[in-house]
């Protein structure tokens, strides 16, 4: 691996991104709105006292929530749900970036000169993957940090932040986020070989939200509490999936295949 070439490629990808204001805005705006929107709703939860909150299955299965007041309980339950939604970001952002990067190169017919350069396909793929993943993860962590800091301000009970931003969530952010980003980009590479429109690649890769939605609904239905063990188990599953998809993407991302088979 020649890291200098990979860094040059990443630099070019990010330069193109900076020059594409529409893409940059669509990448930055929705993620930055998520913590603001979530914190606003969590704040609103603290203003109303609804006795039905205690009957939500998610409240019933976690003993740590037993002594909370109704407002704080509502903030914890909804806070945990919103916190789960942050796991969508490392999938959506790299997916958008990778689809524009790879399908875009294909449409503009810039892949052949790139492939003619003395860069290995491994370096090329790694450069493309990192250029898409790094902003995705960085933005996810930045938004999560904003969310965490904002939580301290909007909660009605000082114990709420620790119950929302628990170990399981941190494990998910640190471990699962990069894996979700890798899965998203690998799938985008595979889809890119078959489609000619970045939006098609994004839509097909939309299937990726399913695992995060399983977490979202699993929690609220009281099927499990997202503790460290669940987070590690989930991450292990993602690791396996990421390895399989990356292997498949590498198989498709071959010089000859791109030049002769990609349509």
């Amino acid at each position: 691996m020649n890291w200098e070439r990979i860094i040059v490629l990443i630099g070019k990808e990010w330069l193109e991104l900076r020059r594409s204001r529409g893409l940059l805005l669509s990448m930055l705006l929705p993620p930055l709105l998520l913590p603001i929107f979530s914190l606003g709703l969590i704040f609103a939860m603290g203003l109303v006292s609804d006795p039905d909150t205690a009957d939500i299955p998610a409240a019933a299965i976690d003993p740590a929530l037993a002594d909370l007041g109704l407002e704080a309980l509502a903030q914890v339950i909804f806070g945990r749900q919103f916190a789960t939604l942050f796991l969508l970001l490392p999938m959506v952002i790299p997916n958008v970036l990778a689809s524009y990067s790879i399908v875009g190169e294909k449409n503009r017919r810039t892949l052949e000169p790139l492939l003619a350069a003395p860069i290995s396909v491994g370096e090329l793929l790694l450069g493309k993957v990192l250029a898409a993943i790094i902003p995705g993860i960085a933005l996810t962590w930045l938004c999560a940090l904003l969310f965490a800091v904002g939580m301290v301000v909007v909660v009605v009970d000082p114990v709420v932040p620790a119950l929302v931003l628990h170990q399981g969530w941190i494990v998910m952010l640190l471990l699962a986020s990069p894996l979700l980003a890798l899965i998203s980009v690998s799938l985008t590479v595979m889809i890119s070989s078959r489609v000619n429109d970045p939006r098609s690649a994004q839509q097909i890769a939309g299937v990726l939200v399913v695992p995060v939605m399983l977490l979202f609904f699993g929690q609220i239905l009281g099927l499990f509490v997202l503790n460290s063990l669940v987070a590690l188990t989930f991450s292990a599953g993602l690791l396996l999936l990421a390895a399989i998809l990356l292997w498949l993407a590498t198989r498709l991302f071959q010089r000859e295949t791109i030049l002769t088979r990609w349509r």
Partner: protein
Amino acid sequence: MYAIECHRLGRQFDTLVAVADLDLAIPAGAIFGFLGPNGAGKTTTVRMLCALIAPSSGSARVAGYDVQSQAAHVRATVGILTETPGLYDSLTALENLIFFGRLYGLTADRAAERAAHYLRLFELWERRNDPVGGFSKGMRQKLAIARALLHDPTIVFLDEPTAGLDPAAARAVRHVIKTLRADGRTIFLTTHNLAEADELCDLIGVFRTRLISLDTPTNLRARLFGQSARIVLAGPAAPLVPLVQQLPFVSEVVAEERALLVRLTDPERNNPTLVRALVATGADICYLEPFTPSLEAVYLELLHDESAVAA
């Protein structure tokens, strides 16, 4: 020393044979014109020689490197102008060149220096900081050629380098190609512009899946058309054909409205006899000139012959 050598090089896509049994030896420092109709397999050949796709059969060495086992060396040694310029529209001309220069292993300073050299050479220096998206087709083509030359390749593959260029820009590109040859570089030129091939190439290969012919332009002409004379007359030419055909040194006669194209074995010895014979029958000769068929005529004749053989 050959810059490019192929031995029975072939490529098949499923059942389609794109390139078959290509034997080629191009001397270092030559301009090789690779001519053939659309779909003949020229791009596939160039891709194999640039180590972008693997041959199905045979072997090839480019700059001494085997295209299969030393593909990375081949790619680092050659420069390629692809069919489409393939530039990044949102990047400036300078950024495009520096990016590719860095990919080819140049340092940032060296890449900038080389980029500046070629931007000046192609009269793009004033537009160096403009996004390429706003460039004309000709400007993009010149920039793509600059990109192919940036890392000082010893062998340059140019696919239709003057396509879409205005006459002045095309002339500038041809001048650059001649300069590259003068520097000792080998040029593999794919073109449909036969006048350009005629002007530039030391060696011509006519190709349709297989190599139909490989020779210098002069030899190709001589082989196909021999040595010919064109006799321009004051009156109609057709009635004189039977007389000329009877002359022992004439191998072929073609009549135009007021001219005869006569293929001779030795024009310097045969022309006086030919003129005397025509004058004796009362023909009014305006003038006689050596006839040099265009490369286009040679090319079409070769493809026609090959089609006839295939049929």
